[in-house]
Structure formats: C-alpha cells, structure tokens
C-alpha cells in the first residue's frame, strides 16, 4: 500500500511547484528538488524510503521540514479526544434507544427512533456540521465555532477535556462526528436485542421468575455488548478517519486537517506516514478487540478446560 501511495503521489504532481516561491531563482528550485531527493527516479526514492522506514524514519515533511511521524503524533491527541468523545456520545445515546427499539419492536417510540436513525445515516456529516454552526453559533451564539479551546492538564495528560472552555469547544464537533455512529449503535443494539431476546436463555430466565429489569441488565446487555463493542472498536478507526471532515469544518487542530492539507500540497511523507499510522492503528484496534472479546466473552477467555 505504501508503494501505491508513494508512486501515485509521485505521478500526480510535483510538490516543488507548491513549495518554492515563484520569485526564486531556478537554481533554488533545483536545490530544493535535490534536497528532498525528488530528482531521483521514483524507485530509488522508494528504496530510500523503505530503508528509512526500517529504522522508524518515515521521512521529513516537505512543508514543515520535520519528521512526518512526529507531526502525526503531535496532532493525534486532539483527534483522539474528538473521536473518543464522539464514541462515548454515540454509546450513551444510541445504546438505550436501540435496546428500547429492540424490546418494543412495534411501539410508536421505536418507529420514531428507527426513522430518525435512517435520517442520521442519511445526512452527510459536513452538511450537518455547517448547519450546527449556523444554528448554535451564528444564530443562537451559544457555542464557539472552531478550534480546541483552552487546554488543561490532569495527571500529566494535556487535553481540552479538562477545561470548561475546552469542553464547550468539543460539544459541536463531537456531536457532529457522533451522529452517524449513534444511528449505527441504535441499529446494532436493536438487532442484538431482537436476536438475544429470541434465545432460549432469556426465556429460561423468565421462566425462572427473574424480573425483566434484571434480565435486561444482566442477561441481555452483556450479550449484546459483545458484538457492539467489537464493531465499535473497529469503527473507532473509521471515526478517526472520518474526523477529517469534521476537523475541516470546525478547524479542529487534529490529524485530519494535517492530512487534508498534506494531500492538497502533495506533502508525500505525511500522507504515507499517515496511512501507515492508520493501518497500525487498525492493527492495534484489532488486537484490542481480541483482548476485549476475551474479557467480555468467557467462551473465548477460558480454553483448554473444556471437559
């Protein structure tokens, strides 16, 4: 994949055109091209990149002149913060609604929940983001429009989660990003609820005389959580990726903005490093899913003890 991206970017445009001031002398252009190794054939450039990558060096950003990976790591917390909040919002809102819909498939409330979840899936993120800015910032003036707000520190972690101003800045982008996922959680929870409710052990739990509240909390919920958690963990990766759009709209200083700019400016090292970063992230998430699976599902956890 790094290969494809590498060559594609090489093929498209010449970053030097974007970088060098047009008033510069021709030798300056040549100097930059040589400094960045862009004067060499693509396969040699790629070979050098691979050599660097082996040593954990993904190259320097053309624009910022700093290691691409460092730039990404520097911006990552902001995106992580945004994505985490979005995920939490999605779970807090989506799970109860989805379970409700699954428990009472024919009620009026369910119909409203399900049709609004269709709308939730249908509205493009960017359009909703813009509308939110218009309504909550421009017309009502309640929420700040852009940026990350004040950053607080708690237990040595720097995050805007720890200041009031930071939280205010988070509300809109996080909600915006969460919207699509809310709809997804609702659907997953509903499908899970419907499925689990049809299982014998729920019926058996009722036959044993357990009250419905307990059945929902201890028998239904843990069982539907397994698929939801695993799906969401994977979705967390796409959330980070989808943050590009939200970050552009709300000027959130995260990874997404960095990458969009890098793509536009053909800052190849950043694009390549970002894609590799995302893939690594997905691998890690997969690992986490496996671990969580084992944590949530004893069938996976305990092995070799079977009779």
């Amino acid at each position, binding site marked *: 994949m790094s290969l494809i991206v590498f060559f594609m970017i090489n093929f498209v445009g010449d970053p030097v055109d974007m970088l060098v001031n047009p008033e510069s002398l021709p030798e300056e252009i040549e100097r930059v091209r040589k400094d960045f190794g862009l004067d060499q054939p693509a396969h040699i450039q790629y070979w050098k990149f691979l050599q660097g990558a082996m040593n954990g060096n993904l190259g320097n950003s053309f624009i910022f002149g700093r290691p691409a990976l460092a730039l990404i790591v520097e911006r990552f917390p902001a995106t992580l913060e945004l994505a985490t909040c979005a995920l939490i919002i999605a779970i807090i809102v989506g799970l109860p609604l989805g379970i409700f819909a699954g428990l009472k498939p024919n009620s009026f409330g369910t119909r409203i929940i399900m049709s609004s979840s269709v709308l939730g899936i249908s509205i493009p993120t960017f359009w909703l983001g813009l509308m939110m800015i218009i309504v909550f910032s421009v017309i009502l003036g309640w929420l700040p429009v852009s940026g990350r707000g004040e950053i607080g520190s708690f237990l040595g972690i720097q995050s805007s989660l720890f200041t009031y101003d930071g939280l205010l800045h988070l509300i809109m982008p996080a909600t915006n990003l969460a919207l699509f996922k809310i709809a997804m959680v609702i659907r997953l929870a509903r499908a899970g609820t419907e499925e689990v409710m049809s*299982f*014998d*052990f729920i*019926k*058996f*739990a*009722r*036959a*044993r*005389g*357990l*009250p*419905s509240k*307990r059945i929902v909390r*201890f*028998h239904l919920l*843990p*069982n539907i959580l*397994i698929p939801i958690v695993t799906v969401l963990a994977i979705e967390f990766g796409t959330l980070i990726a989808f943050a590009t759009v939200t970050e552009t709209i709300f000027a959130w200083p995260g990874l997404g903005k960095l990458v969009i700019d890098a793509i536009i400016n053909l800052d190849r090292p950043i694009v390549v490093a970002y894609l590799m970063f995302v893939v690594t992230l997905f691998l890690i998430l997969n690992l986490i899913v496996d671990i969580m699976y084992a944590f*949530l*599902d*004893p*069938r996976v956890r*305990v*092995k070799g*003890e*079977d*009779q």
Partner: protein
Amino acid sequence: MIKNLLEIYNLNIRFMSDQETVNAVRDVSITLRSGEVLGVVGESGAGKSTIGNAIVNLLDFPGEIVKGKVIFEGQNLVGMDDKTMRTIRGKKIGMIFQDPQTSLNPIMTIGNQLIETIKFTKEIDYVSAYNEAIELLESVDIDNPKLRMKSYPHQFSGGMRQRVVIALSLAGNPDLIIADEPTTALDVSVQSQILELIKSLCKKRDLGVIIITHDIGVIANIADRVTVMYNGSIVETGKVRQVLLNPKHDYTKSLIAAVPRSDIKLKRFESIDFIEGNTHRNKRINLDNHWLGEKLNQKKSAKAISVFELNKEFILKKAFFLKNRVNLKAVNNVSFEINKGESFGIVGESGSGKSTIARLIAGLIKVDTGSIKIFDQEVVNNKNKKEIINAQRDVQMIFQDPYSSLNPRMRVQDIIAEPIKFYKTASNYNEIREIVSDLLNHVGINDNALLKYPSQFSGGQRQRISIARALASRPKILICDEPTSSLDVSVQAHVLNLLKDLQDELGLTILFISHDLPVIRHMCDRVAVMRKGKICEINTTDSIFEKPKHSYTKELLSLIPKIESIN
C-alpha cells in the same frame, strides 16, 4: 383422594399474523397430580410445546390463549398479569428446555445464574443462596460443585449442562416441572441418565412433572401416564402401558407402528398411512422399458466398497507452533468392506467419525492416508482424475438435513435434472422432463411439484426429492448419512420404506449411517460400531443386537429406551 396439582380445561391457543391464523392448540384438557409424571407425545406441529409455554404464560408472539382455564393449585393462570405470574414462575413451576446449549446465559457463571435465581425466588441473602446453590448442584449429581460454581456453561458437556438447567429449575422449590424435550439434544448414553435423574427427583420431592417429547421411547421409560397429541388436539390419554401396548386411536396405532424396534427386524413398516395425507404407495418400478432398467449389477466385483486403513485428522485449533495445535483424529485406521447389493450400517454417537467416513468415500473431503476402492477402482491413491470421477459417479449421497440439502433457489425439476444434463444421459428436453417426472413418482411425489421450490415442501417430501436427485445420476451405491434423524417418526418410517423398496428394485448398495440403533437394525444387513474414530466391532446386524461382543456395543444397547420395556 389426592388433589390435582394442575388442571387444564378446554385450552385453545391461536397464532395470528398478517398471513395466516394457526389454531395451534384446540380444546385440550389435562390433569396432573403431585408425584406423577405425565408424558405429552406428538410429532412436530402437534402443539405440545405450546401447551407447556402457555401454562407459565410464555407464549411466543403472536400466540394467545383464546379460551380455556389453567388451574394450578387452585389458581387460574390464564390472564394473570406478569407481576403475579412472576411469583409463580420459578417458585411454583419450573421449566426445562430442549437445548441446554442455549438455555444458559453463555457469559455468566453457573454459580451466578443459580444464585440470582435463588435470591429472587426465595428472597434470601447472598451467602445462604450460595450455599443452597452448592446443595442444588450436588443434588443433580455434579461433582465438585464449589469449583463448578465458577465455571461458564461452555465448560460443561451437554449432559452436565442439562443437569445445571434442572438445578436452576429446581432452585425455587417448585411443585411442578415442565420439561420440554429435555433429552432430544443429547446422546443416548446421557439421555437415560437425565431421565433417571428427573424420575428420582420427582419421587424425592413429590413433584408433578410434564414431559413433552416426540420420542415414544422416552415416554415408555419415564412417564406414568401419557397424552398423545396430533395437530393441536388430544387423540388419546391413558396409562402408559395401556396406550403403548394397546392403542385405541388410529393415529396412536400408526405412530407406534412407525417406531423402529431394536428387538425384531421388520421387513417394512406397515399401517403407517395415517400421516402426511400420504395414502398412495410407492409405485413398483417397472424394470422393462425404462431408463433405470439398464443393468445395475453389471460390475463383476463382489465388493462395492473396500476401505483399507483409512485415516483423517482435523485441526481443531490452529496455532503457529505444532505443539499448540489441537488435532482430532476423526477416522483412525478404519478398514471394512461392503458387498454388492448389501446394506451396510455404521452406528455410533456424535463425534465418533461415522459421517467423516461417509464424506471420505463420497470424495467430499480429502483422505489423509489409506485406500478406498469403489468396485475395485482405487480412488485415493490414483493420479488419473478421470478414473476417480467415473468411479465416484457411482456413489451418491443422501444428507441429514433436508432443509439445507436442496438449493433453495432452484425449482424441483431443475434440481433433479441437473445431474441428467450434466452427464448428458438424456438426449433432449422432453426426455429429461420425462425422466424427472418418473423419478419424482418413484419417490412418491406427484408431477405438480416440478415447478415448485424446495421451501414449499415438508421435511419428508424434501428428503424424497433428495433421493430422487441422487438417483438421477444412476448411482450404484447410495450413502445415507442420518437421512431420517431430523424427521418425525412417522415420516421416517415412510422414507425408510422408500429406501428399502428402491434397494430391492434397483439392486443398490447402501451405506447407512445413523446414531439410532433401532433404525440401523431395521435397515442393515451388517453393522459396524464406531467409537472415537475407531471401529469396535463389525458383524451381521442380528449378531450385533443379539450377541454383542464388544463392551461398548453392549453399553449402547442397554441404553436404548424401549417400548417393550414397559412392565
């Protein structure tokens, strides 16, 4: 005079949906006393499970009780609100479901499930609940209950799990237990233990027990009285001995006649025409002037199949390091021979490797080592692919699950025509049609089925279609892998009759695989008994059943629930 524990009067239950209204239970009346075991027997769709669910108000949507009373300890349970019902469920009436695999919450420990149930039904604190849970586990004969409390359901075997389910249903000290097919999902050896347990608990605790089952053997083993249901209605009720040995109603008669017996070998099942609206007998096949008439017995070899030192291993758990891999030797050094025209049975419990052998012979999975010869043609250690294909064409298979063995997107005529077209055994379209309709007639399905899809047929009919498809490629050997284990007993009788007829008329060689000893006895000339991938004993059927040599064979035979065991 002992008071009745449960009295059901004129119960009517209906399932109503957009598409159809089904009267699942009609005018059913049942009485039960404490300490008595009542068997409710009937085939699928008879409405027997619906009654069980209706008693504790757990009917599946959209079922509803239209009429009738359920009087339990003097209270009418029909129309009772859910809150009051909760004081009855678990505390007064316990339930046991068919599949212990799905009856337990897979991600909660056994202990917690027991404790929560005890806490809620008895309203006592955690510590006493914990102690009581251990006692309960002991009472259902689970070893080392303290340790087992921390286990999850998947760490138990099927039988143990069903014991836990029984423990759970006893947690609230109920007076009535409703057991819905409690042993259907279990192996024979476990089945009898569970029945024994239920029986003894019933006596010890003076419980009323309703056992719902399709298996007459189970009824014979455990019940005091039996109620026979057909299509939502009760056709006959009485003492077990009287009903089973001297049935009055035609349906009961048919039903009992259709049960294969392990004590005598019958030629055919007779007088089983009551069911499936299926009164016409299979046509006798006219061997003259017919495409099937071509000599099936032309091959010279006396051996239809020879299997020599066959081995097959499955990887159960993949791992990078060899030592971490878990392998299962499904077939371990198996050798046997099947004579031409013979009906050879393989019997064994689930996981014994019998189906694997069938699939190895049919060429569906690859052999690890060993040799298989079909009419003296080696099909394993042979580089000539054409020879293998030709030889294996003589072998066709009938599968266990009639619901998945037919392509749901193809019409019946296309399903049967496929091998004819593929082998180009007919010259034109009309001929194909003719052959297809002939085949269907032979298996007892009439022509208007041609354009229908498999989903429009019942299980027995589908199994017939499967047989027709297998015959369409003109096999000489038919492998039947549990062909009737998912069918009702009366339908099973029909299918078994059909197979016997076909064998007689076409001179087929049959390899018959089943876990059901009576069925094997009914069908086979010779039998191999398998256990854990190995063959314990091969002999003629009569010898196996009357003079078993191997201890495992003896054990198996002793566990069969027998109608004839009623005293």
